[in-house]
């Protein structure tokens, strides 16, 4: 009887270790004393986006990497994809929820910016220090509450938009800045983001 309990405990411990072993939380969240529920505006690679949606705090999920069986969990992805024969579109997807409500919606906020077919990583880096107005001619924001999508317009400021030229396999970089958007019924205010972008989440060549 004792042996069975011992084996079950060992198997449980092994399973726990395989699922959670060496998982590293790469998100650092520091409360902004000026904005309750939001993180500070930073450019040090805290890997978090937070904002108010109709005055309720919304923030991205924690970035967790390094688990043995569990897949890496990233809070943001940046990718370029085909839009039409003349333009591509650069998409920034943030995954999160209202603060304190892990399964709440919207669970995704996206920014879609129309870019030339030739848009590359150096064009991304050229956004550093610029405010981009997102309107019908330049792109759109999306608030995703499955299966519904609400489009909106706004402004994004890139305090930092860089890439690491030393990375050979894939692209890595960093981006930080501020965001405001209007989805009609939903107002995104006081948005601030700060991310280190790893090759697994940065798909712009």
């Amino acid at each position, binding site marked *: 009887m004792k042996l069975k309990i011992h084996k079950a405990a060992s198997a449980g411990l092994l399973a726990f270790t395989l699922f959670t072993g060496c998982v590293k939380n790469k998100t650092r969240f520091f409360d902004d004393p000026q904005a309750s529920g939001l993180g*500070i505006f930073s450019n040090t690679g805290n890997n978090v986006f937070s904002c108010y949606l109709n005055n309720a705090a919304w923030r991205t999920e924690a970035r967790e990497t390094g688990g043995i069986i569990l897949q890496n969990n990233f809070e943001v992805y940046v990718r370029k994809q085909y839009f039409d024969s003349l333009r591509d579109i650069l998409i920034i997807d943030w995954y999160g929820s209202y603060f304190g409500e892990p399964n709440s919606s919207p669970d995704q906020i996206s920014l879609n910016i129309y870019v030339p077919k030739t848009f590359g990583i150096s064009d991304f880096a050229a956004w550093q220090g610029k*405010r981009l107005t997102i309107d019908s001619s330049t792109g759109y924001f999306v608030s995703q509450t499955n299966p519904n999508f609400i489009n909106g317009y706004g402004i994004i400021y890139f*305090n930092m938009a860089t890439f690491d030229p030393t990375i050979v396999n894939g692209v890595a970089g960093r981006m930080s800045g501020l965001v405001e958007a209007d989805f009609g019924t939903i107002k995104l205010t006081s948005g601030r983001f700060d991310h280190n972008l790893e090759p697994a989440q940065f798909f712009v060549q």
Partner: protein
Amino acid sequence: MKRTLSLLLVMVVLSPKLSFSQLYIEPFAGYQRSQNSSNYNMLNTGVQVAFKLKVYEILGQVQRGWPQTFNGVDEAFTTNTFLPLSMPAQKTITTSAFTFAIGHRLKLFGKKTKNSFFLKLYTGLMSQNNVVKYQYDKTNYVILNPDKTIDRTGLFISGGFEYMRSLKNGRLFIDLNFSSPPIGSVKYPISYHLMSPVTLNVGYSIKISKK
């Protein structure tokens, strides 16, 4: 905090039994400057009690670093296209400190003269309070990498040298002391350091009782 207080209690209990031959009260005042940041300096005052034993003295000290304000500038940004992209955010950091320490005064030179040199070692509790305030357009702008008020209490150690001259009714002393900051990390990306003060004090040792 509980652990710190427990360690302090152990430290006091383990001190040698106080069968002293002489008691002194020693008020002092001086100036302190941080070893890890040239911006931080302040006036300090304090008092210590010295129990003279056969070969050295045990000290109990309280010291106050009086509030001093330092100015700085951070940058704030806005998405409002009708306003300039950035503006300076005026920052003031008001720093003050308080220490309670148990120390030892060991004579190095001057056994038979009026002029003596001592080695001093202290351990105790240090409390540092750094209050950060900003002035900027808080409605439209957001500060990049803002600083935060930090109030930290922790164990510290310090050591230094002292010159002392024996007078008719007491002793005059000047000491230079190097201190660690309170132990422990600050879990916030502040741009400033907790002070690690180097202190220059002048004081007078008043003889209180004699066996």
